[in-house]
């Protein structure tokens, strides 16, 4: 059964460093998403991406964040200068279409900023 994969499973970084989180969405999906979940809190929408551009982003997704689909299979989230409060689980998701279509989530990357 096709699934969304994410690497690494756990990333530890120093405050101020850049991190890139990687995702491989399900192959025939067209819409891609990043979410984050701070420990003990709700899942929060960061950004949606379609046709090589951002469809919508949340207030959390400021200039420190960027997304890219560099090679037609990977979907990446970059945090330019990490802060302590960026420590969270980051989930990638993909769907075939928008709105009525089901989103399938990856297993997540646990980011720890020291």
């Amino acid at each position, binding site marked *: 059964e096709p699934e969304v994969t994410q690497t690494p499973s756990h990333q530890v970084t120093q405050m101020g460093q850049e991190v890139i989180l990687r995702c491989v969405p399900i192959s025939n999906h067209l*819409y891609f998403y990043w979410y984050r979940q701070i420990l003990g809190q*709700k899942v*929060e*929408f960061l950004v949606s991406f379609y046709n090589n551009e951002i469809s*919508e982003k949340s207030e959390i997704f400021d200039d420190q964040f960027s997304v890219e689909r560099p090679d037609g299979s990977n979907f990446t989230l970059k945090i330019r200068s990490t802060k302590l409060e960026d420590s969270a689980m980051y*989930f990638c998701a993909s769907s075939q279409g928008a709105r009525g279509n089901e*989103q399938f*989530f990856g297993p997540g990357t646990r980011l720890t900023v020291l």
Partner: protein
Amino acid sequence: TQLLEQSPQFLSIQEGENLTVYCNSSSVFSSLQWYRQEPGEGPVLLVTVVTGGEVKKLKRLTFQFGDARKDSSLHITAAQPGDTGLYLCAGYVAGGFKTIFGAGTRPFVKA
């Protein structure tokens, strides 16, 4: 700011009892998903409802989407200890490309 209020947050019931989880919002959703999430893992999709008034069943789980597409419920019949976990509702906001999540409901089913 769009919100999806999910209740109750926690509940403890005996095996065999029924439980209902509610998600409510003032926002209209194009669709609403229910997920189950285990600790340290990504949410796993249970069901998607799209049409106002829609009811879907998945074994002992019944999902309903409100007529106005602003609310939804999950009903578990004859709960079992294996139903213990975190249940999340998530609404795809109408007119946009954004999904908002409820805070989750964690039932504990005692054998």
